[in-house]
């Protein structure tokens, strides 16, 4: 209201305020408009088993009153207090911004109370029911960071943190000359407060020395349940200052709980010294150990320390409170400003997570190599910061749906098939060069269904296309947004390298045409530095990001898997490859030229991935095993002592090489196999440039476990530095964050 907004306060009087004419008058005076509906008493029924259904507390009388109000006033925004009244949001037009102020997380609240031996009270429900409430809002207000994260995990709607705002009112510290330390507690008589105080008192009375040096002062309705002559009970106090003037130190021994603890905030707003358990300080910007005690016993330990030296310790704690207060106030101001800006502009762009769409024809959640893991890594990097969805060119059948759900991608993967039938009459004109160069990938219905989908959804801030052959779909975006092409490889130079070796590539394109296609995008992603430099020179007006393949790097110092694999008497080397001609050529060369020499020792060769299909008709030694495609390559890497990559041509970055070093495996690679890995020779890689060097490298590693260990360490450290998920995709995450 101080920002100039006119506010109708609609009170559903569950607490019987209507009988207090002073309170009614005060509210009538304060709000622009005040409407009160008496609470209609009736027996509530649980519709969700032993939990409340989300609308079980929403009575019909509220509904008709709100509908009437909504008709009378042209509201810009509506704020609903508590999830159990969220049905009210559904009664307003779609142009009204709907805000849900949650106060507390209600999911699993009953379990939390029962865990502490208390009967569930107030409102408690399940995450599914709470999600229904959240999905009714445009903006959800969480009272602290942990609850914001929880709400974000169950809804796609915009969630922001809004703490409890207060006026700062610093109280001077008391002189503390009474000989005993006056310790204060303030609270209502709810079950969790009572239980917390009981635990504290039990701990306190067990320490005889401490008991004599402490005087406990309690205020609030909790006094009604205290029957102990050693405790000074003030009862309900009109003015908090009267309570704080009676004490030297405030405590909050809360044993568990959700939300933000208003009583801790009471101490904070007065800059008062306090000690509290971690649950009592949730949501406060503090790392002071006395503010975040691990247990009530730990809190009493600190109390004992303070009692011994109050002259020094109390000013220290006062200072800690003031620092925390300053940070909290700054944060609250920022949060309030954000909310006010929303109300004045009726836009939540500054609060919401950016929306990103990934367009691909690769079922990356299924077993595969190279491109599969590249796209999955990209998705993982994006989903932590943004609302990311995937438009997938493929069908989804029951088995596939199960795999999608198992991969945590439920509601994330959207099949174009869902939009195909209604997209037939949508207009779509593909870019000529892009479609002509990828005729085998061009399908008009792909473009039409994407256009249809984008037309039905809220706007995406960025759309990322996977691979050059889907570049023609860029024309399907019906509005101005950031279009990004993840190239994986520069195709023209790749074709050049293959042509020198007499190999054909699936995608044939001249550099001029490739540049013409890339030029249409706002941002180009290169997979390695050299290609990024080329793109920067070829496309000086475009933003080029270098995002190498991101992997989750092995964390052990000497990977247990390495030790495990070495228990076997044979030295195991592995090759991982998809079904491309380049991979088949490379492993055939190895089998023909290297294997006959190195097999004389106790060495096994294990081959993984679709490349095995190209070797099925070849007669192989008993020490060569074709494993085919595995559900997870982790098993493959765990099984081998070293990995080879004798690839001769290609381009981009060799994902299998990156994954090998990320798994802490020594890698023997051709120069092409190590392209894109900086300082390969000190990154756990032996570069072999000829048959002789390959043979030497295999024999060297097979006979020298210490060298394998050293290379393993080097590999992990290099992978962490160059290819960790956060490092690899940080330029893209930064760019999307800057939109």
């Amino acid at each position, binding site marked *: 209201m101080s920002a100039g907004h006119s506010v109708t306060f609609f009170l559903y009087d569950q607490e019987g305020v209507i009988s207090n004419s002073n309170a009614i008058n005060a509210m009538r005076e304060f709000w622009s408009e005040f409407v009160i509906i008496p609470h209609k008493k009736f027996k509530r029924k649980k519709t969700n088993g032993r939990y409340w259904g989300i609308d079980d507390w929403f009575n019909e009388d509220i509904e008709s009153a709100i509908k009437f109000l909504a008709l009378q006033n042209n509201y810009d925004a509506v704020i609903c207090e508590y999830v159990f009244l969220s049905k009210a949001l559904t009664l307003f037009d779609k142009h009204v911004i709907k805000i849900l102020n949650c106060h507390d997380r209600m999911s699993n609240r009953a379990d939390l109370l029962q865990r502490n031996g208390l009967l569930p009270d107030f409102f408690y429900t399940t995450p599914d029911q709470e999600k229904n409430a959240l999905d009714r809002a445009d903006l959800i207000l969480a009272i602290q960071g942990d609850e914001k994260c929880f709400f974000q995990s169950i809804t796609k709607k915009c969630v922001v943190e809004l703490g409890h705002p207060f006026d700062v009112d610093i109280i001077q510290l008391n002189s503390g000359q009474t000989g005993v330390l006056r310790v204060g507690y303030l609270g209502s008589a709810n079950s969790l407060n009572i239980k917390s105080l009981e635990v504290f008192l039990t701990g306190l009375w067990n320490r005889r020395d401490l008991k004599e040096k402490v005087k406990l002062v309690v205020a609030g309705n909790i006094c009604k349940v205290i029957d102990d002559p050693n405790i000074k009970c003030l009862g309900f106090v009109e003015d908090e200052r009267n309570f704080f003037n009676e004490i030297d130190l405030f405590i909050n021994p809360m044993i568990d709980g959700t939300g933000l603890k208003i009583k801790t905030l009471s101490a904070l707003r007065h800059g008062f010294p306090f000690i509290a358990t971690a649950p009592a300080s949730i949501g406060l910007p503090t790392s002071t150990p006395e503010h975040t005690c691990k247990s009530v016993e730990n809190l009493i330990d600190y109390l004992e320390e303070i009692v011994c030296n109050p002259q020094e310790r109390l000013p220290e704690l006062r200072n800690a409170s003031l620092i925390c207060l300053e940070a909290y106030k700054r944060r609250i101001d920022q949060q309030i400003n954000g909310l006010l*800006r*929303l109300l*004045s*502009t*009726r*836009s939540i*762009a*500054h609060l919401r997570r950016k929306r990103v769409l990934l367009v691909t024809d690769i079922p990356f959640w299924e077993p595969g190599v190279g491109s599969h893991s590249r796209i999955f890594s990209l998705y993982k990097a994006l989903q932590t910061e943004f609302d990311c969805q995937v438009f997938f060119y493929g069908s989804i059948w029951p088995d596939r749906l199960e795999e999608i759900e198992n991969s945590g991608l439920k509601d994330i993967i959207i099949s174009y098939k869902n939009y195909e039938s209604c997209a037939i009459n949508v207009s779509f004109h593909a870019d000529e060069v892009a479609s002509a160069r990828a005729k085998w990938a061009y399908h008009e219905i792909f473009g039409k269904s994407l256009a249809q989908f984008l037309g039905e959804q809220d706007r995406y*801030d960025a759309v990322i296309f996977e691979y050059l052959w889907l570049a023609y779909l860029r024309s399907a975006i019906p509005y*101005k*947004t*950031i279009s990004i092409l993840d190239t994986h490889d520069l195709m023209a*130079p790749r074709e*050049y*390298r293959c042509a*020198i*070796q007499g190999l054909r590539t699936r995608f044939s394109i001249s550099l001029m045409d490739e540049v013409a296609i890339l030029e249409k995008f*706002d*941002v180009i992603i290169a997979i390695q530095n*050299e290609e*990024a*430099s*080329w793109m*920067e*020179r070829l496309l*000086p*007006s*475009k*933003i*080029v*990001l*270098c995002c190498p393949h991101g992997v989750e790097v092995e964390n052990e110092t000497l990977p247990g898997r390495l030790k495990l694999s070495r228990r076997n008497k044979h030295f195991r080397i592995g090759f991982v490859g998809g079904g491309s001609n380049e991979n088949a050529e490379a492993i055939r*060369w190895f089998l023909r*030229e290297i294997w006959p020499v190195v097999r004389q020792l106790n060495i096994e060769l294990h081959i993984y991935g679709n490349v095995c299909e190209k070797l099925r008709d070849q007669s192989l030694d008993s020490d060569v095993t074709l494993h085919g495609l595995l559900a997870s390559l982790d098993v493959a890497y765990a099984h081998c002592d070293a990995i080879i990559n004798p690839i*001769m*041509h290609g381009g981009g970055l060799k994902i299998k090489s990156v994954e090998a070093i990320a798994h802490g495996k020594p890698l023997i690679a*051709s*120069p*092409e196999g190590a392209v894109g890995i900086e300082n390969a020779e000190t990154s756990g890689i032996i570069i072999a*440039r*000829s*048959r002789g060097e390959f043979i030497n490298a295999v024999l060297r590693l097979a006979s020298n476990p210490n060298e394998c260990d050293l290379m393993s360490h080097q590999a992990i450290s290099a992978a962490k530095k160059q290819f960790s998920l956060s490092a690899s995709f940080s*330029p893209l995450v*930064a*760019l999307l964050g*800057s*939109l």
Partner: protein
Amino acid sequence: MKLINLGKFGMSKHKNDRMDFLSAVEPFVDFELQASRRMFIDKVIVARCRDELIERLSNSNFQDQINNLIEIISEMKAEMHYLKAAYLEKVRYSEPDFNIAIPKPPETIHPDAIDIDMRGDITGVNWWHTEPTGRWAGPENQSSIQFPALGQGKYRIEISVVSEIDDGIVDDMPVKLNGSVLMLKRSKNGFPCELVGEVDVPPTYRLPFWSLKFEFGKLKTPRENGLPDDRRLAIMLDRIRLIRVVV
């Protein structure tokens, strides 16, 4: 001629009976002509060589016959040597080319200035379609422009503002470059005007792009001023220019 009945391939005597018959029968006959031809040629060559040798040896004495035989055997050995050498050359191992030379990319050059025409193709979000005089920001409450990074150093920034949809939007509008708020001065009251300032981009900034963000405290539709336009607008920009300041 007798009529042969071959099911549906029945033939009439009025047609070329012989050719029809062959074409009908051919798919069922295995003519191994290649093998017969090879065998015939082998026989002819062997017979010719035998005749030549008989001719060379028949009219000479014993010593000449020995000399002739030695010469013939020597020729055969030499021929076998050449054949073997050619075969070995064909199957000799050669290293694959592991080092295919691709030209190294030239050094990236960061320009000293950039001029963004807001009427052209821009990279950014929350901008309406271009108009002859510039481009409106909207419909959300923040707009951004991204462009390839310039080099580190000090730059003068000039933002040409054509108009604002409501009073005070430009004056209350934080503008951030790479996340830091810019101190901008307005060239004059009224519109069009320029927002001018200086910015120092430190060497610690390593991202390959720069980002300029505009935050609005108000949005309005022209319809609220009685015009038939429902777009939610903030400000209209004409161009943005960054020029390196030479120290």
